[in-house]
């Protein structure tokens, strides 16, 4: 491997033995005609740029604005979500769970990392890692505190362990002081974490780094730093 590139970045790439292992496997599969490298590019492009939590934010904002849609989402989330064009892998069977004044929902998959890709994209590392998967079912309040979310003790916590092929998304409660906002503006307040249950929506006017729909001209905080 060449070693003539600049050293301004982490060595998590060209020189990593596991990177070499993955590259070797891709080479073997390509030589054998078992995969099409262009198909790999297309898959990566899909999950890097096309499918992500903005889909889910759109679903939530629609539910906040349209009681009929909210009702459909409660009864048949798969169909309601599909009506917005979000279908497919790890979203074949969907259930939307609504936070209420006295109940907060949290999603986990203790057995692997089942996650609603069609509305939230690929899961973050912490969602797939042992610390979250182990703790979410036994001490969810402690988990939420780690995310800076302190709920009143009386608030019931409902944890959904995704042990079958049903994929959950949380519909958080609509934030206060949002009466005048339209669907697009509301969607900007919905964070990925609020749809997993480890967070709440942003407040109106917030320019939080977790925002999925930054206002025009603002840097997109979810993009990797150069």
């Amino acid at each position, binding site marked *: 491997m060449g070693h003539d590139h600049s050293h301004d970045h982490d060595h998590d790439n060209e020189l990593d033995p596991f990177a070499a292992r993955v590259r070797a496997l*891709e080479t073997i599969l390509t030589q054998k005609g078992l995969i099409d490298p262009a198909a790999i590019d297309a898959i990566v492009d899909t999950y890097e740029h096309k499918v992500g939590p903005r889909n889910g934010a759109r679903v939530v904002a629609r539910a906040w604005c349209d009681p009929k849609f909210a009702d459909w989402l409660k009864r048949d989330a798969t169909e309601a979500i599909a009506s917005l064009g979000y279908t497919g892998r790890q979203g074949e069977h969907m259930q939307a769970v609504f936070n209420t004044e006295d109940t907060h929902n949290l999603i986990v998959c203790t057995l692997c990392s089942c996650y609603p890709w069609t509305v939230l994209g690929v899961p973050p590392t912490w969602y797939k890692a042992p610390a979250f998967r182990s703790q979410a079912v036994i001490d969810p309040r402690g988990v939420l505190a780690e995310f800076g979310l302190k709920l009143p003790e009386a608030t019931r916590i409902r944890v959904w362990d995704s042990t079958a092929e049903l994929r959950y998304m949380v519909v958080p409660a609509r934030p206060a002081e949002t009466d005048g906002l339209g669907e697009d503006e509301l969607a900007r307040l919905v964070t990925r974490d609020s749809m997993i249950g480890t967070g709440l929506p942003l407040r109106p006017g917030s320019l939080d780094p977790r925002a999925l729909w930054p206002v025009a001209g603002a840097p997109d905080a979810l993009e990797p730093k150069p």
Partner: protein
Amino acid sequence: MNGPHDLGGQMGFGPIAPDPAEPKFHADWERRALGITLAAGTMGAWNIDESRHTRESLHPALYYNASYYEIWIRALEKLLERHGFVSADEIEAGHKVWKGVVPKRVLKAGDVAETLARGGPCDRAVLTAPKFKPGDRVRTINEHPTGHTRLPRYARGKTGVVEAWREGYVFPDTNAHGNGENPQHVYTVTFEGRELWGKKSDPALTVSIDAWESYLEHV
């Protein structure tokens, strides 16, 4: 199986340490690992249950030390070997040595969007009537199969309430081992925190799992 993957209620893994600015991929090889794994899955040689079981069958020391996409790749290598597509000496050599098995299909770039949008629904007709209905009190079985199961250890031998009947779903415990889809009714079953974790549990906690019918008994 009681493998390293069955994490619910385990302790000692340290803080979750979420990073709001986390990139979607930490290195280019993670992108390729995702793409290769999904593309190879479309060859139709194995199903998602076999794939999950292969990951959870990695040695615990390896499983806990590996990043998630590393677990994916190590399992993918095993799947490719098991089904005759790639041999261990090829993985060692890093290039093609043998012809290997010819797959049913190979995913082409032009078919990616449609294939991903279609997904792999697992709902199937079940010919028997559901044994349980919402509101029923049920107990989960206390069994420790050596093969694949989707009943987590923390929820075995526990009493809960059926909250919802789901559709008939493919049964992972047999499907993972090439023993057929054998679809069963699936139910969302809720447990009080104290039933799972004892009297010191948060009194305002409820946990649910989605349980196949054969995981449940009437109380």
